[in-house]
């Protein structure tokens, strides 16, 4: 065990927690590695930092490495070592829109994506201006999925803008946007500042969606397989620790520090607890699996996840879907993840694919170590994404 140093870039978001906890709680040291955490100012900068070796690994929006493999926007070879988090993001609307929705009798149940989407479409007369943090994000993909499925002619009536998470509330306050889709705590910050109300968690659109991943340059993983495997283990242990309800308060305290997210721990706790305050009046909604790290094979780099993302990206950017899915498979390093965690007696799935959207309830399946309980993963419109059907 030599003390290898790994620099890891992150964005100030609640779902950077596994990387931060791996460092702060000694999971990294336990693996004989030392993490140097670097906070990035924007997703594009973080991408460039990892692509060009300014950092070794990065907290990354799950579609970014796939978009890079497909050569959309830019081109580079990144590997996804593991999935850092599932869900953890919200859709918010500006105060004027929230007021109109209430006037129309909408109840803000924070659950029914069909009802919320239809109510939203019904109450705007000008093109809806929605912000996402980055063009390649689950936010953008699920927003398109949601509005397209509801029959909104997207080109005509939605303007999707890019705004970095910490600036989302400011943009709404300035009247630049009507709605946003953003990772916590930045949705709650908009609520705290009184500029908007929360309409839905993104999990209401897809109940178990891969949100952030742990990415490295492919050349780095090939040159440093041992260190990369230790990084996977350290971050996985941190994720397991974070999934324990009793650790959430401490996690919020650590993340609230100026060098990490720099937001009060009380606000950060909402995401960890899945108790989301949706309006300044203090209305609170309980969301199951609001933010999940390892539970239900959440950190497993499912090839059905990479395929879903590749399929969506291909559709939106006019590429061939089957070759996009093939390229994406090389990005999610499922075999590498399996071997890195083989010493940990982790209950891992026996396959790399599942039908996405097919599980309406908790489902117990055979795994490498006993039974594995998979979480519900439905899409709001009842669609099932099955690779077999695509062929």
């Amino acid at each position, binding site marked *: 065990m030599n003390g290898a140093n790994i620099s890891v870039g992150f964005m100030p978001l609640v779902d950077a927690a596994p990387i931060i906890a791996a460092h702060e709680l000694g999971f990294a040291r336990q693996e004989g590695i030392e993490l140097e955490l670097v906070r990035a100012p924007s997703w594009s900068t973080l991408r460039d*930092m990892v692509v060009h070796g300014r950092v070794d690994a990065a907290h990354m929006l799950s579609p970014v490495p796939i978009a890079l493999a497909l050569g959309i*926007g830019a081109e580079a070879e990144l590997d996804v070592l593991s999935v850092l988090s599932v869900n953890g993001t919200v859709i918010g609307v500006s105060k004027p829109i929230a007021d109109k929705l209430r006037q129309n009798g909408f109840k803000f149940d924070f659950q029914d994506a069909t009802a919320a989407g239809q109510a939203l479409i019904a109450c705007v007369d000008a093109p809806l201006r929605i912000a996402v943090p980055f*063009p390649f994000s689950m936010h953008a993909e699920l927003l398109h999925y949601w509005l397209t499925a509801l029959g909104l002619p997207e080109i005509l009536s939605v303007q999707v803008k*890019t705004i*970095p998470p*910490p600036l989302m509330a400011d943009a709404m306050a300035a009247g630049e946007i009507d709605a946003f889709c953003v990772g916590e705590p930045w949705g709650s910050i908009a609520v705290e500042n009184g500029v908007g109300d929360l309409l839905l968690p993104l999990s209401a659109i897809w109940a178990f969606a891969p949100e952030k991943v742990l990415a490295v340059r492919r050349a780095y993983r090939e040159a440093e397989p041992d260190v990369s495997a230790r990084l996977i283990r350290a971050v996985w242990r941190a994720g397991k620790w974070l999934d324990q309800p009793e650790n959430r308060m401490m996690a919020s305290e650590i993340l609230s520090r100026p060098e990490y997210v720099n937001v009060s721990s009380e606000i950060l706790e909402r995401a960890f607890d899945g108790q989301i305050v949706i309006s300044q009046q203090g209305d609170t909604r309980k969301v199951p699996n609001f933010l999940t790290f390892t539970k239900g094979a959440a950190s497993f780099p499912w090839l059905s996840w990479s395929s879903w993302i590749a399929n969506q990206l291909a559709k939106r950017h006019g590429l061939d879907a089957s070759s996009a899915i093939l390229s994406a498979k090389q990005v999610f390093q499922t075999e590498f993840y399996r071997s890195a965690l083989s010493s940990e007696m982790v209950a891992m799935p026996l396959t790399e694919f599942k039908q996405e959207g097919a599980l309406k309830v908790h489902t117990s399946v055979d795994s490498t170590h006993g039974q594995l309980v998979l979480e519900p993963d439905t899409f709001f419109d009842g669609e099932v994404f099955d690779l077999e059907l695509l062929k």
Partner: protein
Amino acid sequence: MTKKLSIVVVEKNQARAKLIADSLREAGDFEVSLITEDTGLARRISERNPDVVLIDMESPSRDMLEEMALASGPLDRPVAMFVDRSDDGLTKSAIEAGVSAYVVDGLKPERLKPILDASIARFHMFHRMRKELEATKKALEERKVIDKAKGILMKARGIEEDAAYALLRKTAMDQGRKLAEVASALVTAAGLLK
């Protein structure tokens, strides 16, 4: 072919923006314009239709440019040069310096080099200045908190300034902490007791 290259510099700090523009003009015959506001960034850039956009990597607004790099439009599919890999060495030094450049597709690296060289030099200088400024600010803040702590001790114990300072110093040494830390703890505690 030898049409003047147009460059847009996105930088909130007016003085800094101007200095970067000046050094670019020194480096070559470029048409340089500045954008010092974040709002409507994409629109402002489209209006100017530049060959190159330079922006501080520390600026969160950079992600808004990324969106433009995807859309075809007035900027006719520019690419993020960093992932273009046309000149890896140059790209690396630009990243180290904290400058990022967006370049219209098809622009030759040799035409870009003087632009980046000039802005990298400027960005380095600003980086150093920013660090120095932070260090000065910190020293000033520490000075202020030590003065406050001295005042509290003088009042509470009825001692002279020198004695108060000596007491702070001794406490810091005994506890193996920095003088400013001890002073700040004392000021906080005194605030609570009020």
